[in-house]
């Protein structure tokens, strides 16, 4: 096991290096630079700015310089937010996004799994239809529409909740709902469908015939097997959701780092693009490693570490 983890860590670092390199060159390959705007800067001013941020260096030198700094996790200054470093911007935004994300993940896991179980056990009865129709709405209505509808109903029409910003529990309700709608629905569907499969298995039928109580059966056998695809899905999802959602943070004016992702690209803020991408990728690689380790816990038969054929 230790050898497996070590090997995965090594390949994880390799993955991060590939992502960093590709992002570095891609961001510079696309048209437009950080200082382009409707008002064109005079060439001299542009030159000064390029010099200030070492954009006048040959690209390989910029790349090596950046990689060296990346190893030290010194992500450099932001071009757009002239007084801030990328490390500072992440340090400010991430706690907020993570807080929101953890709440949404909790809702998604708890509600999604419960709804999935109920649906499976009551297949084609009203509980199932209700849960699955809600789930359909949950993933066919994207978060920007859902968020707007929530604001329209609960802030604009009813005036019950503040429309935006962050910090108090009443401000968290709508963004958490909007952010968790998709994963909740997806998890509910996954659990339902895997549960149905498991419930069809002979050993389940046998256990039921032997008179094993329902909830033990569900927990010990059905759920353990049904949870596998949920864990798979939760890997990349948690990395995404913890680093914030552009849409939710924009609509609800939440000072997280989700907005940074999209605006940094729009601004061609190279260091910020790199910084948030690498931060997210580290989480992603870690989350996927945890997922693989969890596989073995949930289903002892799985041997991810196995040497192959």
């Amino acid at each position, binding site marked *: 096991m230790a050898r497996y983890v070590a090997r995965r860590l090594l*390949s994880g670092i390799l993955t991060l290096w590939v992502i960093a390199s*590709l992002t570095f060159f891609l961001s510079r*390959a696309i048209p437009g630079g950080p200082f382009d705007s409707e008002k064109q800067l005079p060439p001299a001013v542009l030159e000064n700015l390029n010099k200030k941020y070492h954009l006048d260096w040959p690209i390989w030198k910029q790349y090596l310089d950046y990689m060296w700094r990346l190893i030290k996790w010194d992500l450099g200054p932001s071009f757009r937010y002239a007084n801030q470093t990328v490390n500072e911007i992440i340090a400010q935004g991430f706690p907020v996004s993570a807080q929101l994300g953890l709440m949404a993940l909790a809702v998604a896991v708890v509600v999604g799994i419960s709804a999935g179980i109920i649906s499976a056990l009551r297949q084609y009865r009203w509980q199932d239809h209700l849960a699955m129709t809600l789930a359909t709405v949950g*993933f066919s209505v*994207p978060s920007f529409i859902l968020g707007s509808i929530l604001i329209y109903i609960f802030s*604009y029409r009813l005036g019950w909740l503040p429309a935006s910003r962050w910090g108090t529990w009443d401000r968290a309700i709508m963004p958490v709902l909007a952010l968790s709608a998709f994963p909740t629905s997806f998890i509910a569907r996954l659990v339902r*469908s895997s549960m149905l499969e498991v419930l069809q298995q002979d050993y389940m039928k046998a256990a039921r015939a032997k008179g094993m109580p329902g909830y033990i059966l569900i927990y010990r056998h059905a759920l353990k*097997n049904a949870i596998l*695809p949920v864990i798979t899905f939760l890997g*990349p999802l948690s990395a995404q959701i913890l680093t914030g959602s552009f849409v939710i943070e924009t609509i609800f004016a939440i000072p997280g780092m989700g907005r940074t992702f999209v605006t940094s690209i729009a601004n061609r803020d190279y260091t910020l693009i790199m910084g948030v991408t690498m931060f997210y990728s580290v989480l992603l690689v870690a989350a996927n490693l945890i997922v693989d380790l969890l596989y073995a816990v949930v289903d002892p038969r799985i041997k991810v570490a196995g040497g192959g054929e």
Partner: protein
Amino acid sequence: MDLQRFQPVPREALAGQEIPRPSTTYWQDAWRRLRRHRLAMLGLTVIVVLILLAIFVPMLSPYSYDQQNLSKAYQPPSAEHWFGTDNLGRDLFVRTMFGARISLAVGFFSSLMAGIIGIIYGAISGYFGGTVDNIMMRIVDVIYGLPTTLYVILLMVVLKPGLKTIFIALAITSWIGMARIVRGQVLSLKEWEFVLAARTLGVPPWKIIWRHLVPNALGPIIVTMTVEVPAAIFTESWLSFLGLGVSAPIASWGSLAADAYQNLRTAPWTLIFPGLFISITMLAFQFLGDGLRDALDPRMRK
């Protein structure tokens, strides 16, 4: 286990051992069961109706998708304009039906892509495991990690905007979630006795994957494929927004909804109708998906 101690059975010897069930093939059987699945048939009917509407409404309507009447902007639904009008006084019924062409195509395509590439990739990675798995999954991680906007912008520069470009962009990203799910399922399923048995019998890997592993992972596969439909519909609108997709005044459901999401206070119908059609399509796909799963799942085969 020492594999040396086992001898592969000659193929001829297997001939007599196949379970004799010549009357129906797997697929015939599945189709028969699908037809009996009422909700699935309802879903299928809705999808067919939507396709017909998308084809014929724009041909038969007195309005065209791009015909403006600036003095009639933001009219609520009426006998004249069933779904009301938009910001330039265009008929939203025709625009919504025209939009169905793009959105349905994009949804189908992306779901299919996720299905084909994702299943093959995920199954190979999971089945062979070890180093193969490690490399293949790290490639998936790289695709996950790269900011999509970056290579979409690059695509935009390299290719001409249009539906074809949208398909390429969708094909790049749509399958990675599916690949991970299938790989996870296969990792688990391949340790089951029946797979072991098949392997010992010398059944080639692709056959094990296709005949034993994939059918047993159908549940999560179909859920993932259905979710891919709305995801693709909205990704298309975002790609069009970046300049990759179909150009205005042609609109898709995604771009109709995206343009209207701020209109709830003043012109809610501009959001409600495209949104409603996306949800109806989704429900239909889901019913069909449930039916397909029931029909294809070997364990439910009686």
